[in-house]
């Protein structure tokens, strides 16, 4: 195990529990939102570190930047349809065709770049975490999702719902300071139409884009030897 790997494990196995412990002891278990934001950022750090340490080829680097800009530009392009956004679909495609690391980074950095443009806020660390996780999961299931289009659409819908569930937890903690189940339920119910549109947009975009975009990515990978 080299130095970089050790640093990664230190972040995951020492810093994350330390932050949680600190939150529970020093802040009386009251500052859930801050502690969870710290954990969300810290869990992204090992990926950033491994990306930094590796000799990733320039082509991969640029390809990642392009996928990122697609997911963010999609928000502009589809601005006329509220909540109907291709971000998750692009992140899933990046995860399936470009690998675990690119999938996670595409998700996490999409949230960051969106933040640069549309305004950073307390939700940014959680968006980074949630989209990063979606990219990671899709890359782990890539062989399965590549072949089975129905599974891909189901994955899109489920990830849309999970994303909303996670960000509703954040809003609950943000408005109450603590996790309040009745507030969570109320938020979830009022957000149902948005969640439905969001999940549907994931399914539609994945259905329309996954195969053609995947083919293009595969073609580029073969043509230029990535």
């Amino acid at each position, binding site marked *: 195990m080299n130095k970089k790997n050790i640093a990664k494990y230190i972040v995951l196995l020492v810093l994350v529990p330390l932050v949680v412990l600190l939150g529970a002891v020093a802040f009386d278990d009251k500052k859930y939102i801050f502690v969870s934001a710290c954990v969300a950022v810290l869990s992204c750090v090992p990926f950033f570190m491994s990306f930094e340490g590796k000799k990733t080829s320039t082509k991969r680097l640029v390809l990642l*930047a*392009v996928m990122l*800009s697609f997911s963010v*530009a999609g928000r502009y*392009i589809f601005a006329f349809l509220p909540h109907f956004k291709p971000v998750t679909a692009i992140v899933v495609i990046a995860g399936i065709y470009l690998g675990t690391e690119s999938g996670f980074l595409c998700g996490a950095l999409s949230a960051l*770049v969106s933040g640069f*443009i549309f305004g950073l806020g307390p939700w940014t660390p959680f968006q980074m975490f949630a989209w990063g996780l979606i990219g990671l999961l899709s890359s782990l299931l890539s062989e399965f999702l590549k072949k089975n289009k129905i599974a891909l659409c189901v994955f899109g819908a489920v990830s849309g719902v999970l994303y909303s569930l996670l960000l509703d937890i954040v809003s609950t903690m943000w*408005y109450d300071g603590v996790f309040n189940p009745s507030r969570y339920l109320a938020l979830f119910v009022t957000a149902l139409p948005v969640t439905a549109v969001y999940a549907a947009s994931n399914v539609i975009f994945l259905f329309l*884009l996954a195969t053609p975009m995947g083919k293009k*990515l595969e073609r580029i990978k073969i043509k230029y030897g990535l």
Partner: protein
Amino acid sequence: MNRNDIAFARFHPTVLFFYFFCLILFTVFTQNPVLLLSALCGGILFCAVTNTAKKNLAAAKLYVPMFLLVSMTNPIFSHSGATPLFFMNDNPVTLEALLCGVDLAVQVCAVMLICGAFSRVMESDKLLALFGKLSPRLATVLSMALRFIPLLKRKWGEICEAQRALGYFREESFFDRIASYARVFSALVTWALESSVDTAASMSARGYELAGKKHFSLFRFTRGDGIMLALTTALSAVTLFGILLGKADFDFYPRISEINTDIFAIITYAAFGTLALLPFIFEVKEALKWKYLRSKI
């Protein structure tokens, strides 16, 4: 008002980042109404002097309903507190929960306003200069992505126009529109992926993969930055000291505690108030200086 006209934005990125980090940290961690109100005042005043009237109105339309929503819904979800005002569905609506909701609403709005100020002051080039020192490769990816976005938007418009001219673009129904846009998107993907490989080849040819590169940064640390950093550190240290000593402790449940008014508490409030109002004070100072210098011509 243009982004570049914000005087506070001219400080070094490290100073700005440190300032906002401290301010947000304190605002998130305290429940004390005095501290939260001063943070909210700082946010509102900075917004007011750096934004146009139209944008201020739009912000008010967002923040006022949010404030009311958070403050009014808290008593519905929280039934702690010793002073019931009335009963709703057999659940007490307490004075403490109501006031706690107002306090939380102040906190939520203050943090949102400060985050908004942060976004306006820290443009992407400043953030990249900060990230670039920590992680040059990630900063490269981010800055390339930021550069690709306007490029993609322009190309998107060009492809749309070409498709319209060819008569391939149908906009009658929702699904027609989606299908048409999806086709444009597909063409855009092909173009972007191919040109990205060109970019990569060009970067390699210019020696991007060689060792010994340094991150380019336009920002220089001046004496003014040093003064601002020292001021922020001093004020934050006093505030932190006060908070750690428990001078700013405040509880809503079971009964609302009294606001601490001993001399140390007042020093803490003053330090944090100055910290929260720093950007506004600086903005006003610079505006007055500009007026004065112009009047001399």
